């Protein structure tokens, strides 16, 4: 029985592999996979690579997000940053904690984006799916509990 584990990741592709593997361990695989991937991709894009919410929307609109992520992953100031995921499982609930090496963000003041913003929905969707979601004060570590 897997009770606890730690994963480290740098790229979105690594995050997909981890989320799919962990999703397969629980009955509601799609929900777990979705929640973990959203949080892990946030940790990479907004955390480690420090791409702000509004710049991300502009990059999405211009079709330039992939190139910007690749560019930042190779930059000396970002390339050694690692994000991590801790898993703590009990019989009926699992706590997943995602952390990154970025400066954090003001999670207290994040709004749900309007229809004109093509990004920024992940967090509010994860909140709806989870039993609880909580950030550390800095905003670079988030814990979500899922059944």
């Amino acid at each position, binding site marked *: 029985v897997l009770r606890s584990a730690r994963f480290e990741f740098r790229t*979105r592709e690594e995050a*997909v592999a981890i989320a799919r593997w962990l999703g397969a361990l629980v009955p509601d695989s*799609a*929900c777990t*996979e*979705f929640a973990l*991937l*959203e949080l892990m*991709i946030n940790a990479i894009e907004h955390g480690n690579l420090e791409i702000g919410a509004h710049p991300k*929307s502009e990059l*999405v*609109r211009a*079709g330039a*997000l*992939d190139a910007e992520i690749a560019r930042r992953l190779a930059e000396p100031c970002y390339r050694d940053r690692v994000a991590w995921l801790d898993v703590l499982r009990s019989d009926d609930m699992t706590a997943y904690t995602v952390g990154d090496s970025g400066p954090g963000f003001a999670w207290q003041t994040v709004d749900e984006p309007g*229809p*004109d*913003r*093509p*990004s920024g*929905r*992940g967090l509010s*969707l994860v909140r*709806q*799916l989870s039993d609880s979601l909580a950030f550390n004060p800095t905003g670079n570590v988030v814990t979500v509990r899922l059944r």
Partner: protein
Amino acid sequence: MVQTSRSHDTATIRISGRFDFRCVKSFHAALDQGCATWVVDMSAVEYIDSAALGLLLLLRERAGNDPARVRIRHANGQPRDVLVMAKFDRMFVLED
């Protein structure tokens, strides 16, 4: 995978497998073709992420934010759950 076909003034974007951040490039390429009305056929989509939601909003924007010009067809399972949770059923026509 993203495939586009066209009949008269309607373009159909058919996505299969995972509709996620890895579809961004091909979805953008489909949008660049321009069209009067769009159908997004999601019958073969098994999973969507928030990046896919962003792409659907870009399509809506490209169609002048006119709900009559974009239809999302055959979204079921996780994709439909996520669309409804994100309130996309209020911004798009979701067809069975």
